[in-house]
């Protein structure tokens, strides 16, 4: 399959089951909601070493938030429910509770309930106040700038992590420009995050390493500087490869995000140095969710 001169490989991205949750951070203005959201989703690019994958889903208008203030929706993904709950609690406690004027609300009403403000309340040292409004429990925790308002729980749901595609280009600037265009479109899709810096990862990995202590190492088949010394997957004109990783609430959400992302890359086309779109998989051994590139773009 070739779209605008860009070859779409007959391969698939391989993804695996995760647990996910969503929270809504509001603040006095969008600037401070975003600062808090960025702190909460920081150092959360990959479960390999961060414990979770997190990202900003989108900015919310005041009319979309529970307290009528500007807000940001964030999502966190982890391999299990326990680790997700732990990550949510520590991040909420250190990054949102501490952030001026912030408030924290559930972003998923159904699912298994996990603690959001439920345990942070103890920071109130006995001065905290619970309010049950319309069946939802909120904690008012006195802090130095006034009160931190946090909903007691949010929902945890089954999700999919590790959807991806690779952008193969003739130069590094062209690969990055294509990924930026893809991310801009993918951020419009609900229920997905792209957890890597700016949504783009330049250090795609393969499973295993020559070093016993490492579970993952550089994906040498796609490293352009190794074209002459490893079993490369790159043709001679490819000078740079970048990857976009997607976590989503459902397979369909990731399908949509991949479609608009790949389309945005293909819109730049071969004339802008984009040669191929490929994907990372492990022969179907890693996860049950397979995203066939040509099916998605059909």
């Amino acid at each position: 399959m070739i779209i605008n001169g860009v070859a779409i490989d007959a391969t698939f991205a391989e993804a695996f089951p995760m647990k996910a949750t969503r929270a809504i951070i509001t603040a006095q203005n969008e600037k401070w909601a975003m600062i808090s959201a960025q702190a909460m989703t920081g150092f959360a690019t990959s479960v390999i070493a961060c414990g979770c994958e997190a990202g900003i889903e989108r900015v919310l208008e005041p009319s979309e938030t529970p307290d009528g203030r500007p807000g940001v929706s964030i999502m966190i993904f982890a391999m299990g429910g326990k680790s997700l709950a732990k990550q949510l609690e520590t991040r909420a406690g250190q990054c949102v509770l501490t952030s001026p004027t912030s408030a924290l609300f559930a972003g998923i009403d159904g699912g298994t309930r996990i603690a959001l403000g439920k345990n942070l309340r103890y920071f109130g040292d006995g001065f905290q106040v619970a309010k049950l409004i319309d069946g939802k429990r909120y904690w008012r925790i006195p802090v130095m700038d006034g009160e931190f308002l946090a909903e007691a729980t949010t929902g945890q749901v089954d999700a999919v992590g590790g959807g991806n595609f690779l952008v193969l280009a003739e130069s590094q600037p062209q690969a990055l420009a294509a990924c930026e265009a893809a991310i801009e479109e993918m951020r419009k899709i609900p229920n997905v995050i792209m957890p890597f810096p700016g949504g783009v990862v330049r250090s795609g990995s393969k499973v295993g390493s020559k070093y016993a202590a490492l579970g993952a190492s550089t994906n040498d088949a796609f490293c352009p500087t190794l074209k002459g010394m490893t079993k490369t997957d790159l043709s001679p004109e490819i000078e740079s490869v970048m990857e976009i990783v997607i976590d989503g609430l459902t397979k369909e959400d990731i399908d949509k995000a991949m479609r608009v992302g790949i389309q945005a890359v293909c819109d730049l086309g071969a004339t802008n140095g984009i040669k191929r779109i490929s994907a990372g998989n492990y022969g179907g051994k890693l996860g049950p969710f397979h995203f066939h590139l040509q099916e998605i773009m059909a």
Partner: protein
Amino acid sequence: MSALTFTLKHQPDQRVDMSPLVCQKLAEMQPAEIAALTLQNGKRKIRVDELFDITGSDAQNIVIKNSFGKLDFIGKELDGGRITVEGDAGAYLGLGMKSGEIEVSGDVGIYAACEMKKGKLIINGNAGDFLGAALPGNKMGMKGGTILVRGNVGERAGDHMRRGNILIEGNAGDYCGSRMTAGTIAVMGQTGKHLGFAMRRGTLLLWNQPQASARFNDCGAHTLAFLPILFASFKKLNSAFANNSAAFSRVQRYAGDMSEMGRGEILVKIS
């Protein structure tokens, strides 16, 4: 199906215990069985059809017409369905109600919604003393649900209240929120003496400055983030509380009762 309607034929001299006439108890009964039920009337029992004309059959929607202030225990432990009272209601309206909705067009007596657990109670007139309170000797008053009073309420509203909302468009009598454990009482009108007496936790939300009390300490003026959410929850009510102009988030906060646990609060609107 039309509403199961009880129209009072005459006003008896003695008080009537209406507790058998709730939705869940009448759900499976035939009209003849309902007519043959007996109600305690003073020290004697009378048949339902001796006191009421009965029409309709939908036991989930009960209407009591020509009601007056001696019909006690209307909607006692109501568990689903709706009771509409046209006229006044006596004491213990909605005592311990578990779910459902009761609406009274007139005034109600003492202990309305006492020990209420869930559901909605709307009183279009005035309410007597001990609205949403605990029965004498008990420690737990209203535990959930919403009470809306369009008129005034008597003394000790929310006595021993534990959870839920009491919304009063008019004035509240003395000792409003006394011995409250938690929950919210909102009063648009004036409040009486000894507001929040022995209050442990909970919120008294006021539109007008109450009489000063040595038992509450001024914590200053604040903009509280939970208030917009609280007001948003009132939007579905047909009430002055649902008006956009009623909502505010800037309040003067008083903490107390300092002679008790002192974790309660009086929030007074700052105009």
